[in-house]
């Protein structure tokens, strides 16, 4: 008799996709087999059972901006979205540029117990783009991804030295690739819609320039490099070419760049404001194609909560960002279709391997920690509520396909649909 048995689903195992039950005991996967009996049964018929999802790009806002989100509400939203591990971006207040704050974030998440949180570290002190952050200390605290996300690290000399340093440790440099001079006054994609609305645009080239420059530095330093929230067709092409050249490069795309495009900004609804901005229809199609064919390695949420009050302002004055943890898996399945292996690769296994996250993102096998998700890929639903503290999401009230039935962290149910 197991503590929990997940029965009747399609299970992603090391040997492939199998129709079997998953028996869980003492927080671990105890058995994979047929006809297992548990004191608690989770019905997975018609659903996918795989490793808990891993988000490489979450803004938890704690410490410093708890009115938008905190670690408890953010990880509760993560669990509801099928996630068992998230990488917390370092643009907190103060920034995660030293080990104390990194410890605080991961330890607090451990006590709350909704999801494991792996903080990313800032590349530069205070994310100011000048002096190297406490990279060694952060490394020792378990940090593997370094980024000044929220801003682009534009200074090539500073970036080059950080790349040299992080390459030696074996870490990853992740870049928010938006040239800060070309995007200076911009609040949306530069194109036909920005021209109509009379708003300052951010040309696609703001992204291409930074990626192209960084790739040259990757060639120079050999560092593992990850492009955050790629938004343009040319950005994807640059990454594809670098991969073909054998550079250690990966990239992610957000759910909102897969769902929306700059035409949605015609409403001037601040929920459509984010950085990088929603690009053209052509870009959106290229991003979808990139996820399907794997040139874009992963889907990462860029979950960026903001209080209603902060978004109740004109578009140009609104802060950037949308929440994403609770519908990212739906958007992924809407993009990828019924390719279960690709789904878990893009949302769990590859993010865990890029972020060097232990014990997550593994095809199921006995004696592994039971970090699991049960996901129904065809269920239709309409998000109306959220566990996040903020509601800045144009997904609310829209019909989606694919929903989470249950999420388990170390064998404990952190989310179950309908409860």
């Amino acid at each position, binding site marked *: 008799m197991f503590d929990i048995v997940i029965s009747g689903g399609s299970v992603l195992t090391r040997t492939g996709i199998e129709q079997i039950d998953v028996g869980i005991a003492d927080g671990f996967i105890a058995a994979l087999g047929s006809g297992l009996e548990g004191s608690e049964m989770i019905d997975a018929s018609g659903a996918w059972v795989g490793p808990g999802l891993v988000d490489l790009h979450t803004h938890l806002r704690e410490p410093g901006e708890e009115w938008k989100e905190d670690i408890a509400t953010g990880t509760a939203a993560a669990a509801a979205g099928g996630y068992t591990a998230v990488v917390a971006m370092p643009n907190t207040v103060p920034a995660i540029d030293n080990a104390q704050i990194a410890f605080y974030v991961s330890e607090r998440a451990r006590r709350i117990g909704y999801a494991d949180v792996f903080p990313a570290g800032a590349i530069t002190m205070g994310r100011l783009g000048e002096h190297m952050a406490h990279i060694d200390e952060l490394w020792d605290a378990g940090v593997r991804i370094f980024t000044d996300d929220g801003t682009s690290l534009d200074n090539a000399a500073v970036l080059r030295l950080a790349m040299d340093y992080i390459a030696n440790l074996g870490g990853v440099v992740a870049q928010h690739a938006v040239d800060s001079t070309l995007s*200076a*006054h911009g609040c949306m994609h*530069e*194109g*036909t819609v*920005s*021209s*109509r*609305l*009379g*708003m*300052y*645009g951010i*040309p696609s080239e703001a992204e291409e320039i930074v990626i192209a420059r960084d790739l040259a530095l990757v060639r120079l330093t050999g560092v593992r490099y990850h492009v955050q929230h790629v938004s343009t067709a040319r950005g994807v092409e640059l990454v594809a070419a670098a991969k073909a050249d054998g550079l250690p490069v990966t990239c992610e795309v957000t759910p909102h760049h897969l769902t929306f495009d700059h035409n949605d900004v015609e*409403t*001037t609804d601040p929920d459509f404001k984010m950085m990088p901005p929603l690009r053209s229809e052509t870009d959106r199609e290229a991003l979808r194609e990139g996820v399907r064919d794997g040139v874009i390695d992963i889907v990462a949420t860029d979950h960026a909560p903001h209080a209603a*009050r*902060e978004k*109740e*302002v*004109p*578009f*140009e*004055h609104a802060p950037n960002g949308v929440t994403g943890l609770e519908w990212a898996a739906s958007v992924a399945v809407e993009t990828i279709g019924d390719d279960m292996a690709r789904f878990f690769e893009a949302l769990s296994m590859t993010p865990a391997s890029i972020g060097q996250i232990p014990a997550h993102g593994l095809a199921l096998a006995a004696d592994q920690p039971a970090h699991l998700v049960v996901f129904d890929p065809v269920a239709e639903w309409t998000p109306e509520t959220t566990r996040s503290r903020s509601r800045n999401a144009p997904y609310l009230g829209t019909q989606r396909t694919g929903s989470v039935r249950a999420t388990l962290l170390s064998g404990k149910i952190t989310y179950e649909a309908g409860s």
Partner: protein
Amino acid sequence: MNHLLTTEGLERETLENLLTDADEFAEVLTRPIPKVPALRGKTVATMFFEPSTRTRMSFEKAAKALSADTMSFSPGTSSLSKGESLKDTALTVHAMGVDLMVVRHGATGTPWRLAEWLDIPIVNGGDGAHQHPTQALLDCLTIKQRFGSLDGLEIAIVGDIKHSRVARSDMFAMATLGANVTLVAPPTLLPVDTTRWPAATSTDLDAVMEKMDVVYLLRVQTERGGGSVFPSLPEYTNRYGMTSARFARLKPDAVVMHPGPMNRGVEIGHDVADYERALVLQQVTNGVAARMAVLFALLGGDSDV
């Protein structure tokens, strides 16, 4: 019509009805007592988050000529700087008992937000570089009074198209009323993508101006978006200014317009603004009549124009 937010997509009939009414209100303004009781008991609030004394005065004069009461809000005297959200500000002013709000804001889309939050008519008094529909009405009224109709007229809008709400509003209204609009600007001041606009574009004023019936000059600002947009003012004037020499080459009945305030000697020659064929002051007078037509259309009764 529940609000007046943009000229884009306005029906020709709606525009023409507003212009016809505006013409009647223009007559009211010439009377010994230039005032009618049409909107007695109504309150119009002008919410100008971006300072513009002349546009505010024009709206207030229009409201008062219709016997409405007016209230005005400006951020200098407000709690916006104390962190109150735009929504709270709007709800607060609305709660004082306001029947219509005129909103001017430096950011695109603000009047749409207010229209979403409040259940009263909103008039866009200018949002960012996006729209300024009453300016378009007064400009079209001025042209219509001069030429009888806009149908088939050749109109050039010259200057900083990229950052101009006047250009955007006028272009859509003029095109709907049958004019052929050409946007003329240095390449740095043309919008990036105008493929779906009902207008031609040009970077060469001299090449297009001789066929024009109306040349509409926009105010020049030298610094935009953090960089220079043209080499120097004299160089701008040399290529795009309506100098008296250029004026002499216009068609004999062509007119020159400007939304004000003018930079004499830059986009418009020192003397040109005073010529009989420069309609600048008539535009200002018509501004009041056009705004009366808009206020009356939104508050005078409960059916469509």
